[in-house]
């Protein structure tokens, strides 16, 4: 920040806020990362992690009893189908969406990479002569590191979602998809706000929220440009939908002269009517609300005669590897509606005190699957190992993404890439699986084991060369001379079966 007097009222005094976060939680993702196990160990040891982990665990316990009650279970089936229907013809729906948006006077920018998307927004800001940008919560703008890009051009960017504002003041990334400041306690928030204000404040949540409201209100009126994410983009009508409780997206899409909506390409949905399914489900999964307080639907800029709303609407549609993912075996991960439920439910995420330790844009189970696929950073390939494979993420996912299976598959992919030796091991396991899938193969392997056990000395392991030696010391080969005896005994005891015709026909239930 070079300009001393801030364009933003909300960020005035920002330099007085002390930075307390570790490097790996910084607003800007780190290029050079320390090894994941070290960062994770550090994260777990922080007292903040214990407190926020406990809060998330309480919530998770309250929420995830009883699985999916009706009518939510029904909505979940429908939503899962709608999202997969969309993924089956992504380009078709995107073409329709683009056509509708353009028809209504909006401008669509397709961006292949994160850098392209950031560059597109920079151009729009420069064209509009923007000095102050208000932003409503969006993960994709984290992915493209938009704030840094705009700030490089001397544009001040203010996060207006309360949680995002709190983490922005402390130069942190959001730690949870829908609860960006979940890793902080009210004392931490109060410390930041007091430093900003230069005076004592009431330290309860309502008073702190009210302080932020007052600060940010001024910026909504002053800003030249508003940036939002998109929860759903309706192909049928070209309508962009944002879902909030705070109402900041309503401000951001109605007060500034220019509105820039940034979305990833899988946000498209076929029809307006699908919102009747997706929004209650997203709300339930994310916060257990019947619906969130606000759903804002934008179809083009303001029209002739209208007295408010943006004069320009730009929609930036980011790919960043997603059309490649859509063609591969992990395509279903693009069904995600970013509810954050898998994060709240994940014991590893909670123990780490949120998503910072993952080092990527997206943390938790969805991040552990998506980040390696996006290929943001080579270290992300290790993220699928930050999981206990307890399966909670798959259970709570409102669009039925098989996250646990994907985590296992990604580990296998990683192992294959990391060590060629693992390839041999994999081939071995495959051969074993093939052999034991038939009774005859099994019998043969048992016979081979009996024979081997007779021929090989039992102390063979101790004679192994090289690094295996330490593991092998004190171990002996199992005695397999009697292998298969249980089966033989059982066969001898079992009465000979009658012909199939004598058995009563089994009738299904």
């Amino acid at each position: 920040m070079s300009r001393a007097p801030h364009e933003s009222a909300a960020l005035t005094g920002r330099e007085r806020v002390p930075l307390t976060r570790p490097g790996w939680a910084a607003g800007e993702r780190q290029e050079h990362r320390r090894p994941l196990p070290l960062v994770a160990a550090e994260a777990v040891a922080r007292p903040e992690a214990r407190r926020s982990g406990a809060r998330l665990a309480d919530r998770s316990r309250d929420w995830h009893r009883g699985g999916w009650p009706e009518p939510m279970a029904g909505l979940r089936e429908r939503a899962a189908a709608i999202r997969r229907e969309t993924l089956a013809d992504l380009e078709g729906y995107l073409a329709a969406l683009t056509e509708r948006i353009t028809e209504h006077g909006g401008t669509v920018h397709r961006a292949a990479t994160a850098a392209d998307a950031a560059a597109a927004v920079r151009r729009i800001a420069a064209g509009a002569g923007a000095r102050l940008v208000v932003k409503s919560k969006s993960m994709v703008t984290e992915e493209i590191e938009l704030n840094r890009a705009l700030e490089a051009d001397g544009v001040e960017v203010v996060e207006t979602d309360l949680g995002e504002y709190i983490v922005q003041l402390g130069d942190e990334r959001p730690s949870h998809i829908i609860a960006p400041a979940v890793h902080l306690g009210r004392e931490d928030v109060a410390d930041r706000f007091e430093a900003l204000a230069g005076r004592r404040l009431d330290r309860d949540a309502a008073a702190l929220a009210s302080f932020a409201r007052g600060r940010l209100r001024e910026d909504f009126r002053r800003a030249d440009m508003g940036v939002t994410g998109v929860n759903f983009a309706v192909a049928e009508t070209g309508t962009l939908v944002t879902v909030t409780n705070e109402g900041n997206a309503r401000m951001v899409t109605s007060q500034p002269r220019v509105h820039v909506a940034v979305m990833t390409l899988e946000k498209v949905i076929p029809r307006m009517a699908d919102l009747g399914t997706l929004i209650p489900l997203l709300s339930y999964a994310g916060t257990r609300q019947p619906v969130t307080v606000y759903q804002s639907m934008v179809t083009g800029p303001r029209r002739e005669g209208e007295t408010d709303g943006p004069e320009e609407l730009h929609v930036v549609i980011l790919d960043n590897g997603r059309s490649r993912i859509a063609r591969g075996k992990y395509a279903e991960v693009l069904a995600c509606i970013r509810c954050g439920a898998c994060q709240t439910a994940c014991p590893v995420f909670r123990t780490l005190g949120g998503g910072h330790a993952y080092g990527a844009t997206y943390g938790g189970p969805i991040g552990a699957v998506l980040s390696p696929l996006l290929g943001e950073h080579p270290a992300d390939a290790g993220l699928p190992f930050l999981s206990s494979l307890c399966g909670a993420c798959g259970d709570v996912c409102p669009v039925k993404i098989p996250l646990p299976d994907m985590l296992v598959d990604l580990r296998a992919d990683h192992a294959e890439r990391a060590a060629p030796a693992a390839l041999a091991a994999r081939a071995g396991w495959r051969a074993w699986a093939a052999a034991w899938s038939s009774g005859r193969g099994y019998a043969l392997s048992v016979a081979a084991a009996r024979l081997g056990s007779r021929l090989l000395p039992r102390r063979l392991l101790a004679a192994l060369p090289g690094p295996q030696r330490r593991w092998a010391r004190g171990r002996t080969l199992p005695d397999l001379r009697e292998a298969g005896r249980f089966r033989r005994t059982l066969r001898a005891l079992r009465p000979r079966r009658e012909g199939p015709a004598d058995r009563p026909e089994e009738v299904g239930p």
Partner: protein
Amino acid sequence: MSPAGRDGAAEPGGDAPGRPGGVGSGAGGAGDRGGAVRTSGTGAVDPGGASGRVNADGARGLSGDVAAAPVSGDAGGGHGAAAGDALAGPAAADPGGAATAAGGGAGNLADRFAAALEAVGGRVHRAADPAEAAERVRGLCGERPVAADRDEVLAGVVSGLVLVDDPWAAEFGLTTALAAAADTGTLALAYDRDHPRGTSLVPPVHIAVVPADRLVPGYADAVARLAALRPVPSGMQMISGPSSSGDIEMELVRGMHGPLALHVVLVGG
């Protein structure tokens, strides 16, 4: 490292979840408006008024059973902190007998709507006719500045109010709604030259006057109403309660960037 910890998995099994926070649905109702609810004063309201923008009523195609409405909830504090005296209008203490009888489908929808909206911190008032609605609105606003949409539903309501054009200068924003979903307490609005975005957003208190015959059963029905509008409006908005945030220790705070309070006056029965 072994981050799995003791708290293990997501503990499946058990019963349905409750709502976090939320104001009890029966909130302090001095419920004596039963008579008013039974009156069917549609004549003067002219539901067709604003609905020139609604594409017939065939929009209601979807089942009304979408969106669970577990409106139990405990009595959370109603954070008046920032709302100041805006909440203290004479009628604020009288949510208007949300639970009082009124047979018939519309009556049931009105009751369900009131219960759902009050569960998320909104206030529902019942008025027998436009004249009574006007009285309720005047009672809320007094002499303080009001920004109002231009709409036939509001024609009889705005007289006697102190009207201003700039919503930033107003303490109240007065609108109607094209539909109101009973199960979720949701208002559906569409913007155009007579219905700017700022009215229901910028002033600290939003008041919506809604003819009772615009009630629909579920959220999906309200979406369907908006989806049927042609041409597609430049902006549409669903609203369920005053603005809120859970970003500080996941504690529910009512009153964030949007209005701190939401009043709905249901007109007719």
